[in-house]
């Protein structure tokens, strides 16, 4: 299925873009995260996950559907 990935904060620098279309073979958010951490060095950056603009908890693995928008949101410190 096709999903849109959106990256924020430090993740933009590590991944090299703030948005990308991804063809994925996995079905849930935790499988997607597993795949992302294999492809990109993002393990040192904390973030929360949102699916279709709704933040999901750390313990939830949400089932993904074709056309979903998945956003990775790190906390910012600056002020």
């Amino acid at each position, binding site marked *: 299925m096709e999903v849109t990935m*959106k990256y*924020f*904060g*430090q993740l933009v620098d590590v991944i090299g873009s*703030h948005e990308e279309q991804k063809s994925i073979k996995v079905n849930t958010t935790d499988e997607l995260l597993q795949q992302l951490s294999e492809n990109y060095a993002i393990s040192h950056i*904390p973030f*929360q996950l*949102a699916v279709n*603009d*709704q*933040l999901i*908890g*750390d313990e939830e693995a949400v089932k993904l559907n074709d056309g979903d928008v998945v*956003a990775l*949101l*790190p*906390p*910012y*410190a*600056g*002020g």
Partner: protein
Amino acid sequence: MNRYQRQIILPQVGENGQQKLAHARVLIIGAGGLGCALLPYLAASGIGCIGIVDGDLVAESNLHRQILYTPKSIGKFKVDEAKAFLNQQNPDTQIDSFTYFLEGQNALDLFRNYDLIVDATDRIDVRYLINDAAVLTAKPVVYASIHRFEGQISVFNYKNGPTYRCLFPKAVAAPSCAEAGVLGTAVGLIGMLQAQEVLKVILDTGEILSGNLLVYDTLNARQHTFSFAKKEKSQITEAFYRERHLNSNIESQSFSLDYLQNGLLIDVRELDEQPRLNHERILEIPLSKLDQNIAQLDKSKSYGVFCQSGKRAIAVASKLKNSGFTQVIALKEGAQELEKEITHTRLNTIK
């Protein structure tokens, strides 16, 4: 009231709204980039009382974005300089200035005197402290934070709504403006969005960003809003607050050889205080030079801080802990006792 006539004619404000502003008491944590952006607009709007908390001094590297300060402000307390500006700008607004940093010990008493808390700090640990103290004192928090060109804005604990811990349950480290870099206009834009939420909360108008996180990318002119729910897991009690924000107080510990083998000692006495202790694992960083040297220290290393009597050691160890150093203690022993310990150790090693 002619001063406020152009906003009073807005149906969302009116005479009633102007009275709400005049009676509002708002506490701003941090007089840096966000603070400098929102303070003049909040004062200009006729808010009755604004408190500002920041123990920091103005540095030259602040001036490109912290627009309340001039080259003459360098070395002075930010809150004093901000107060002088705001008193000129709107004599109707009472400005309370607090020349110290927000800590577990002072947050609850400070918050009780205000209706609304504004998180304009630049440290993640202080964001959690603000959140927890606001929950315990039942105050809403208007939050903003910056990473380079991006800003996050939200309102926490609004009418018992979700909090910062519901949004980011894991307390973690993230780069500050000093580390990541920032453009003055970006922090200004985000500060304006934050100020707008402050006015909306006071006036009780519009859609408040409660349970919603607005992320604004000022480089690409994009904005996204994400919703998040209140989590019962994130309950904040007095016991939780004590554990997280008060028990982290520094207690002095006795010197152990471990610090000369696996860690480093920091001598925070001024350079003319005797005796001087020479050892490859002792750094000399006088208290008066700490701020300039803190960046040289490594947060992953363990440090034991000492001075002459032990008092400055506690102050410095506490400051380091608040700056994100996790393995730091204050030593009970002063320099004279340590000299004996170290000499003794050397003799034993030679034997």
